[in-house]
């Protein structure tokens, strides 16, 4: 279909219209961090962000959630509805949206559907904001995507660098969201030209490259390599890389019991923690940071590929930017390639 355009000044009106039917979540700035929050007015949105510190994966797979409550061995009641109203996530970056295609493989496969994830996912529309200012740490173009990637999006919005946004519907629901108001108009030839130019410029700005072709096979052969002795040395063993990662999705199940009742809770867990593989006998097969870091790399670039046919990384660069000791996955991939 042909794209639409909306004046930047009209955007608030459009979002206000949408808020009648949806809860709108958007990037908001606070304490030096930008993160997604439900908004009551478009004026709360912070547009000057490159990307959020945390990924919006927690809007589908929260850091911690009660799966059910129990009392005296009986399930207490059906769980509450997870979303009161359908949701729009406004200005999600294409890499973070693309990530949901990977999480879908885990939580919404043919064999297994996680009801909590699926309910949130089905009840959410994704309005992507194309990445016109990629960062030096971004390498999405190496991960079979790009700053204008449309995977999982319902709408792709592009800042044309003038007073307008280009809006392209990707799905039927996206089309409906546009159709519900008259603030958007058909894009003209100049808008389309500008769109192509903006896209080309954004893609050219991404200078970081990693090579994933052949990586899976390479990793098959180097499980016992001395490379792992080198790359883990400076690792502190914290969970920044995994908790801020778009794709990391490991969790622990815990029962928190009070008197005769309690709750079963699902919480994020990290392969970088010693307790992640600590067995009841006291034995720990991943005894040091070396084994844990190898697992992190193997899961993303080998096991996930074997299980689901795709690499579990979208190239958002959060692990690189936020690692306190500057461990850089691009460098590790390069070292693996050099082996």
């Amino acid at each position, binding site marked *: 279909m042909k794209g639409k355009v909306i004046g930047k000044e009209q955007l608030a009106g459009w979002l206000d219209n949408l808020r009648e039917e949806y809860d709108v979540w958007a990037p908001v700035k606070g*304490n*030096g*961090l*930008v993160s997604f929050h439900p908004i009551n007015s478009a004026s709360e949105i912070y547009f*000057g*962000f*490159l990307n959020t*510190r*945390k990924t919006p994966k927690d809007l589908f797979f929260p*850091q*911690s959630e009660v799966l059910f409550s129990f009392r005296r061995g009986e399930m207490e009641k059906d769980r509450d509805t997870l979303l009161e109203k359908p949701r729009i996530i406004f200005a999600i970056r294409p890499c973070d949206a693309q990530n949901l295609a990977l999480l879908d493989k885990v939580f919404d496969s043919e064999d297994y559907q996680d009801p909590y994830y699926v309910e949130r996912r089905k009840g959410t529309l994704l309005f992507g904001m194309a990445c016109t*200012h990629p*960062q*030096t*740490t971004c390498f999405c173009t190496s991960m079979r995507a790009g700053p204008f990637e449309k995977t999982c999006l319902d709408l792709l919005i592009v800042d044309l660098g003038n007073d307008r946004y280009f809006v392209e519907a990707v799905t039927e629901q996206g089309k409906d969201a546009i159709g519900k108001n008259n603030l958007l108009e058909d894009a003209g030839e100049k808008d389309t030209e500008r769109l192509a130019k903006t896209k080309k410029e954004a893609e050219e*700005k991404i200078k970081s490259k990693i090579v994933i072709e052949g990586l899976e096979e390479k990793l098959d052969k180097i499980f016992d390599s001395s490379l792992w002795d080198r790359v883990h*040395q*400076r690792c*502190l*063993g*914290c*969970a*920044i890389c995994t*908790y*801020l990662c778009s794709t990391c999705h490991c969790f*622990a199940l*815990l029962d*928190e019991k009070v008197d005769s009742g309690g709750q079963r*809770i699902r*919480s994020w*867990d*990290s392969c970088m*923690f*010693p*307790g992640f593989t600590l067995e009841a006998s006291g034995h720990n097969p991943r005894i040091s940071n070396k084994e844990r870091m190898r697992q992190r790399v193997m899961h993303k670039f080998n096991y996930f590929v074997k299980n689901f046919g795709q690499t579990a990384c979208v190239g958002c660069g959060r692990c*690189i*930017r*936020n690692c*306190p*000791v*500057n*461990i*850089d996955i*691009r*460098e590790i991939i390069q070292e693996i390639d050099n082996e």
Partner: protein
Amino acid sequence: MQENQKHLREAAEKLLSDKKVDVIIGYERGTLPLRTRPVFIREPDETKKLVWNSRCENNLSFYLKTAKGKVGIVAKGCDARSIVGLIKERQVKREDIFIIGVPCPGIIDRKKIEDTLEGRDLQEGVESDSQVILKGEGFEEKADKDKLLHSSCTTCTHRNPVLYDTLIGKEIPEPKMDEYSDVEEFSSKKDNERWTYFNDETSRCIRCYACRNACPSCYCPQCFVDQSLPTWFGRTPHPSDTLIFHMIRTLHTAGRCVDCGTCSRVCPMNVELQILNKKAEKDVKELYGYEVGTNLEELPPMATFKIDDPQEFIK
């Protein structure tokens, strides 16, 4: 600083050539603009990788816990205090380490650089004596280093390492100041204001434990939050778990924390609880006359008892 970097490389090369140490833990240039990172040097010709500048933010004493053989370690003022603590707490042996002390005029807080940039991406950075030049898409600007220093550095009174085997360059003057004025100011706030502050800060915590893992004083083989038999704390980011984790960590490090600022530097969520650590440091100083990590002889106050210790808490 350039001069000191040269001396550092020379000293390190000699130590490795003379086989005085097996490894040198120092800083090398990182992969991101203005970043450095820990490096482990084992060959004399690799010592040219070593750097020394105002971005050497990590407290390297963390690595002494797992290092093997005789270790040369680059230590700023605060790092040297951490090392003193680790020796006193018998986590490392004095004879197993060779301390390469470097006087430190203060370390730049990369979060302050981020604030200066207001969302713009830093593509290149250059540090001079008093300024840093920040460059990116469509901008190039200068910022004074003084204004970018980490808060721990602005109140630091131990810029020169208290313990070293060799000192790089000359000692620098120690500033005279009331290092606890911020604690006084914070303490004078109303209870509910302080409570709100701590709740707000810890509400952003994602329990990644970077603060704990990077802290030289946090070396318990199993942290209380990781214990599962019995479970002392839930793993959720619920306030009852998160707030208590941070409060207990403060208590566990009281009389041991040297205010190196590592916990605040590493936090990905900008959780800022240093005021609490500093309050504990101040209390220990006032109650026991003990300044953490400044000498090897005096016993840590939490590990000893003196007849004139304050006992007002026993009613």
